[in-house]
């Protein structure tokens, strides 16, 4: 392997940041890996530190310099071209020098409905153009992003507090803050390294408070407090039931995944448990990047031990001894809370070689993403942990058979895991005491947009959509709801005539929509549909991993098509454009590798159907 182009020496700060993560390099090795002729297992064990190492550089010096990248390659034995491929995959990693303090300002759908545009204009006036437009201004000067201090960002998972920003200040003690209620003044404060006060948000239950039982109670963030609130009783119960008993209970509860695909959790755990004798893994998918989704963040920040307890139960039930949390990079508070919860749980013997003094081993590693929606897709997530680009692969084989490092892996969403906690502690029958026959239990919904009290709401399955919106205060000022984006940008619009839709998996399916990740984005007539559709199209274009043709190019063509409509420049008339969109959508749905491409036209196509009565594009031009 030739490292010539990366032979520039790392700075002392960079060396220290990497050595703090990987341990010191062997003397006189010039940072080369200590192990020579590594076995595939050793190489694999080191490669998984590639993304953590890149994040360490980003946090320490604010970008991935050639010297820093080269040092990481030498320490980990990763070919520089591949490391470059990984570094350029993630939106939060900068590969050109920029100021240590940097702001990511959300301009996604929920924030756009609550003042993001004004905030971005103010940012531009004070701090200069957004980093991406700096490239545009001078395409001939490819490194023109240098001086930019801020960039627009897709949804930051703070839509309940919109508009939102993420501010990172690199340094010896990096400061990372994600906050809502963002104003120019608050962003500037954060850029100066000062702590910004959190904004307020709603947490409420219509019916039994289960998933949110502890959220909002500060006690839950300490181990003793968590135990006092009934924590770790489910794990005790799991030990009584035994692995098979736990899986039986989860199967009986009909619990299905809350990450979007609604796959039965019990069946997933059974499939992993079947691989007796192999190293198995449990992965908590905490990548939550679907625009409009923030429920997992609330659980992770406010109830971190519940996530650890549930993962431990999943490990016990499936025979997995290794747990991984893949947390989206934009959630610094959750990262802090989880890291300290893991430390406390280990110290108390709730994680480790002998949990609760029994012959049960399970430990959890926390991994952070770096700005890539696609890394929430399960196979992309695994690739990301392994140190490769977050590119999904075709299934089969499924992760339950061929998962992390090729080993059987149960991947579950945060909310799925926390729901399993209730199932195991109270039993399947008790769990099903609310909800519908097809969808027992409760579900978290993320209310955002033009709603009086945005926040996370727990409701029994079967609750009508209109009742939920009303519970959250309806549209401010008593205005009429013009529609809802349900399930996220990978979901569909629900027009004003269908707001009585029952929120259950079966009713959603029958209505041709999806609960997706629980997004309920409420619209009134202040929301212009076409700009919103363009933002959604831009999101998919930005977040496509780029691997397969239907999605890589199809998402671009879809955005171009909407741009034409927005300019009133339909090519060949509206019907021709609609036909083109339908064909694009069909091909993306049918021929894309993964769910991103398969759903990239879902919301957009549904808008044309749901809002037809409002005029061709949902809103009369005034």
């Amino acid at each position: 392997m030739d490292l010539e182009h990366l032979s520039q020496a790392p700075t002392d700060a960079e060396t220290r940041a990497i050595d703090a993560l990987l341990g010191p390099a062997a003397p006189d090795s010039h940072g080369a890996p200590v192990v020579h002729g590594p076995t595939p297992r050793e190489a694999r064990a080191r490669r998984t530190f590639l993304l953590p190492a890149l994040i360490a550089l980003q946090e320490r010096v604010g970008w991935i310099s050639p010297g820093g990248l080269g040092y990481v390659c030498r320490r980990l034995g990763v070919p520089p071209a591949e490391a470059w491929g990984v570094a350029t995959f993630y939106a939060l990693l900068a590969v050109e020098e920029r100021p240590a303090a940097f702001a990511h300002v959300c301009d996604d759908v929920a924030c756009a409905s609550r003042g993001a545009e004004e905030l971005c204009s103010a940012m531009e006036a004070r701090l200069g153009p957004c980093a991406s437009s700096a490239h545009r201004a001078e395409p001939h000067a490819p490194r023109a992003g240098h001086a930019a201090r801020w960039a627009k960002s897709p949804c930051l998972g703070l839509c309940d507090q919109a508009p939102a920003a993420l501010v990172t200040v690199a340094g010896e003690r990096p400061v990372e803050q994600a906050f809502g209620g963002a104003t120019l003044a608050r962003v500037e404060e954060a850029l100066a390294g000062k702590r910004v006060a959190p904004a307020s948000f709603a947490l409420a239950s219509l019916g039994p408070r289960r998933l949110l039982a502890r959220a909002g109670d500060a006690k839950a963030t300490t181990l003793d407090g968590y135990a006092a609130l009934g924590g770790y009783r489910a794990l005790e119960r799991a030990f009584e039931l035994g692995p098979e008993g736990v899986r039986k209970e989860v199967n009986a509860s009909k619990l299905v995944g809350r990450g979007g695909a609604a796959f039965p959790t019990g069946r997933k755990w059974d499939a992993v448990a079947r691989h007796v004798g192999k190293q198995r893994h449990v992965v908590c998918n905490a990548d939550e990047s679907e625009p409009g989704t923030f429920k997992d963040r609330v659980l992770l920040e406010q109830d971190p031990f519940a996530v650890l307890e549930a993962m431990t139960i999943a490990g016990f039930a499936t025979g997995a001894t290794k747990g991984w949390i893949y947390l989206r990079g934009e959630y610094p508070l959750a990262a802090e809370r989880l890291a300290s919860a893991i430390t406390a749980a280990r110290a108390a013997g709730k994680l480790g070689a002998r949990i609760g003094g029994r012959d049960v081993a399970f430990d959890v590693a926390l991994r952070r993403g770096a700005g890539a929606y696609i890394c929430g897709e399960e196979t992309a997530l695994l690739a990301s942990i392994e140190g490769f680009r977050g590119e999904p692969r075709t299934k089969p084989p499924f992760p339950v058979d061929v998962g992390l490092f090729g080993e059987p892996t149960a991947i579950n969403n945060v909310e799925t895991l926390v729901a399993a906690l209730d199932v195991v502690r109270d039993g399947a029958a008790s769990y099903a005491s609310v909800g519908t026959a097809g969808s027992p239990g409760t579900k978290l919904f993320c209310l955002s947009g033009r709603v009086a009290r945005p926040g996370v709401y727990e409701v029994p399955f079967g609750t009508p959509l209109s009742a939920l919106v009303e519970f959250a205060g309806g549209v401010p000022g008593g205005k009429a709801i013009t529609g809802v984006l349900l399930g996220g940008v990978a979901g569909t619009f629900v027009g004003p005539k269908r707001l009585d839709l029952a929120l259950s998996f079966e009713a959603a399916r029958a209505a041709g929509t999806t609960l997706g990740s629980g997004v309920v984005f409420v619209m009134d007539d202040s929301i212009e549909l076409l700009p919103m559709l363009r933002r959604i199209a831009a999101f998919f274009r930005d977040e496509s991993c780029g691997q397969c043709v239907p999605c890589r190019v199809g998402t671009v063509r879809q955005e171009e098509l909407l741009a034409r409509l927005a300019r009133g420049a339909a090519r060949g008339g509206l019907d021709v454009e609609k036909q083109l969109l339908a064909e694009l959508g069909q091909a993306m749905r049918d021929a894309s590798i993964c769910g991103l491409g398969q759903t990239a036209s879902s919301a957009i196509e549904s808008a044309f159907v749901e809002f037809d009565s409002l005029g061709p594009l949902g809103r009369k031009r005034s």
Partner: protein
Amino acid sequence: MSESKRTIELTIDGRKTSVPEGSTLLQACQGLAIDVPTFCWAENLTPVNVCRICVVELEGARTLVPACSRKAEAGMVVQTESERVKLSRKLVLELLGSSVDMSLASEFQALATKYDAHPERFGPRAPRAAPGEREAARAGHHYAEDGEHAANVAQPKKVDNELFVRDYAKCMLCYKCVEACGTDAQNTFAIAVAGRGFDARIATELEAPLPDSACVFCGNCVGVCPTGALMFKAESDVREKGEWDESRQTVTDTICPYCGVGCQLTLRVQANQILRVTSPADHSVTSGHLCIKGRFGWGFVQGKKP
């Protein structure tokens, strides 16, 4: 190896067939002489299944499946030319044709005709990117186009060595070169996919020129490139002068004289000049892959100083 393998029975286009366990649907189709188009698949590389031209309809599956990599299973019922299949293939051809220069990709034009693909319906092509522009794109950001032009990957050629040129305006991102440079053949890892989405591209570290990278100039990436994006400099020069003329060319098989391995070479010659050197992908010694000497070391034949 094969005697212990079970046989799998399935139905393709209404015809029953049986294949050894582990076969792909593509292999099953080939057994029935059913034509399934491929771009990113090659017999000497691990399937990456990214181009999606090979999709077929599998009964009971929510989406179409890539024939090149989906394993045959007992009882599968497959349609290779259903309406859904035709639509997806048409769109894949249109999306490729409108974003990449596919003029040298063999079969592209024939397939476009067969599937009634009209890449031009996405509008006129956007102008070529300035030098460095595509490399400067950053994950998660792009310039929203106005929809007047169809965005594409047109960009200047990269000519940074005497042996081969990289004309990424013709790159369909099939990953073949990356695989050939990596574990499938060369194990050099000089190139990888960088960037994301439509801005994804084949790159060395920091987009460095090839001579500054790990590249050992084996040319195996050139050998597998299906679109002419990677091309012998000799061939590229002749084409640029407008002198490329297949009727004046000879194709000669020979054995590489350099070492004792015995690699088979196929030389394409025009006007006494060797323009391209390949090796058959099914050759037992090379699997289509060569080293720098067998691939490029023919200056002496031309009477050039090495």
